[in-house]
């Protein structure tokens, strides 16, 4: 409670300060605008602000930033055509340090000092929400991704019918996770008994919520759910949960955990003789580095899948296929592909598409209008805000799959596409025990 009030206070202070800076900035820069507008310059320049958690606990989401931005800058280097004129594009990228207050601060800098025309952001509510809030207050066009839409929309007090003015988002939602997981668990030989590990944080509370989370759809699909209650993240002991799961005969374990908590639970489960047949965990099992750290016990774990190199999509900007993008990253850095790569690329595809179509790039209203009318097939699927679950939100396909051993390395394989039939299935689910 105390934290949220102080954040609120910081935010309102910030708004007041940003307003003062904006007012001062406007007063000083007004004569300059009168003298020469950039539309009359030789090659007019468009500025894009980009906020991303380069450092801190969320840094894994942004590890491909340098590679993706280099590729995007190359694609933009010839300029983007708008109404018959080529516009040079400059991307200004800032680090949120995985801190929502810092994210708000750098986005306000981007909007007020760097005077960016569009602002983009990705990776978790802690980045996406503060950036979008700053953009909304200043009327700056804003596109975000890589955060389930419920925390984005309801976390910012969105009203489904009204939506937001200038901020738009594309990703999937909790309902897609639930549908994908249920499809994954429809397997003969697995009892319909699910154990839930939901932490006491924004994600855990949403997943475990009796109304909007897992409990209701699970009951409707005939699964029983053993939910011992919300645990504190970074707990050292999961004995209570393991005993409850054993007592209930749980064969499927699900939840939304951070990697250290899952690793802890998983080794304790091994020590205490708890052997579920399917383990499907959100968040913790996204990154190959985590799976590698679990060794043999990482093989066979299942997770939601937003994007893989075998998704049948290609970039509208460079024409690269999903596989080419992922392999480009792997060969340039020597690191395995990760799911955020596709979405980071798609973010700039949407920007390029919007810039091409905008009626007047000098006018932020026109840019927002162009975002609203977007209908483009990107490397992560179709982005079209006329088809959203609520205003300002559109969804990309979500499937689920398993970390399977292929040769000497472990790769993420799509095993169910019930929720998005256009994504090809790469293999069959193998039970853990």
């Amino acid at each position, binding site marked *: 409670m105390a934290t949220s009030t102080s954040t609120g206070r910081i935010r309102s202070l910030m708004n007041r300060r940003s307003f003062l800076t904006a007012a001062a900035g406007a007063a000083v820069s007004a004569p300059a605008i009168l003298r020469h507008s950039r539309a009359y310059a030789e090659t007019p320049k468009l500025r894009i602000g980009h906020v991303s958690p380069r*450092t*801190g*606990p*969320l*840094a*894994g989401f942004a*590890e491909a930033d340098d590679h993706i931005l280099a590729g995007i800058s190359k694609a933009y280097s010839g300029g983007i055509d708008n109404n018959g004129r080529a516009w040079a594009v400059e991307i200004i990228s800032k680090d949120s340090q995985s801190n929502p207050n810092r994210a708000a601060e750098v986005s306000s800098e981007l909007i007020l000092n760097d005077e960016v025309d569009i602002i983009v952001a990705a990776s978790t509510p802690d980045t996406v929400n503060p950036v979008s809030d700053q953009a909304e207050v200043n009327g700056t066009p804003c596109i975000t991704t890589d955060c389930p839409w419920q925390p984005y929309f309801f976390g910012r007090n969105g009203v489904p019918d009204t939506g937001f003015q200038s901020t738009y988002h594309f990703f999937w939602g909790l309902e897609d996770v639930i549908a994908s997981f249920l499809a994954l668990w429809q397997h003969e030989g697995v009892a319909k008994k699910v154990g839930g590990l939901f932490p*006491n944080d924004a994600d855990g509370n949403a997943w475990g919520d009796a109304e909007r989370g897992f409990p209701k759809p699970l009951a409707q699909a005939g699964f029983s759910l053993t939910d*011992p*209650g*919300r*645990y*504190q993240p*970074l*707990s*050292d*002991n999961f*004995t*209570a*949960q393991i*005993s409850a799961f054993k*007592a209930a005969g749980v064969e499927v374990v699900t939840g939304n955990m951070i*990697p*250290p*908590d*899952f*690793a*802890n639970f998983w*080794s*304790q489960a*091994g*020590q*205490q*003789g708890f052997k579920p047949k399917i383990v499907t965990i959100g968040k913790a099992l996204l*990154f190959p*580095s*985590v799976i590698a*750290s*679990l*060794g043999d*016990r990482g093989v066979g774990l299942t997770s939601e899948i937003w994007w893989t190199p075998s998704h049948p999509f290609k970039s509208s900007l460079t024409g690269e296929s999903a596989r080419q993008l992922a392999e480009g990253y792997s060969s340039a850095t020597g690191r395995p592909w990760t799911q955020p790569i596709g979405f980071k690329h798609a973010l700039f595809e949407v920007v390029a598409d919007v810039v091409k179509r905008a009626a007047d790039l000098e006018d932020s209203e026109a840019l927002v209008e162009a975002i609203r009318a977007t209908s483009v097939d990107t490397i992560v699927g179709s982005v079209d805000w006329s088809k959203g679950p609520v205003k300002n939100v559109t969804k990309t396909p979500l499937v689920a799959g398993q970390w399977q051993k292929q040769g000497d390395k472990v790769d993420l394989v799509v095993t169910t596409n019930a929720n998005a039939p256009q994504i090809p299935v790469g293999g069959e689910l193998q039970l853990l025990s």
Partner: protein
Amino acid sequence: MEWVNAIVQGILIGGLYALFAAGLSLIFGVMRLVNIAHGDMIVAAAYVALVVVQATGLHPLASAVIVVPLMAALGYAMQRLLLNPTIGKDLLSPLLVTFGISVILQNGLLVAFTADSHRLAAGSIETASIQVAPGLALGVLPLVMFAASVLIIFGLELIFYRTSLGRAFRATSDDPEIAQLMKLDRNHVFGMAMALSAAIVAIAGIFLAIRTNFDPSAGPARLIFGFEAVIIGGLGNLWGTLAGGIALGVAQAIGAQISPGWQILAGHLVFFLVLAVRPRGLFPRMD
């Protein structure tokens, strides 16, 4: 049986907390310094172990042969170069220095190792267990950790009360000025205390790395339980620190058995209760 199991597992976790706390307790006992960077030093030791294991192919537990002396040497250097110049009448300056070390360690590790989450694979020992009774299986790894923590505290007691180094520790702790009159070099004594603390930190780091995933920002969360174990057990009493760790582990296990949301809270409540009723801890040995 569920409750017995919960309490036994809680006791084993308590051993881990005591391991996190022993080095902290030692430093506080000898130089009245709360080492804020203790948790980050544990994580740094985990990374050192990671590098050693990758370079030599040793089993993580065997890597202690290299990691422990290395960390001890680093601890000695850190004390002599960074902390000793600030230690004096003012308690705040060395505290702030350890705070700075904590920030530098976290960010330095991030630059060197990225934010990737790592773990040390220890093979079959990770999930091996001994079935004591139906519904009560004791993990081999938690048992090893508990035994290590008891042995370390036993060893520290021996050093403190049976060796000349221990006499120097106690003398400096009791009255640094008189100790210096007796030709004890305070700087060296403090350096040796930090070296010993860092050696224990090395073992805690190796166990942490085998037990669960760690990343550069994992340190501070480890500091809090260690700190609570020291306070519950009583300042300056090493066996008390073990008792404090076990009290914390059991309280958390009982809390979790009632509801998982109570796990961490129950530990904090016991800590609060001890502070309220016996502010100097359960078995204080120091004024």
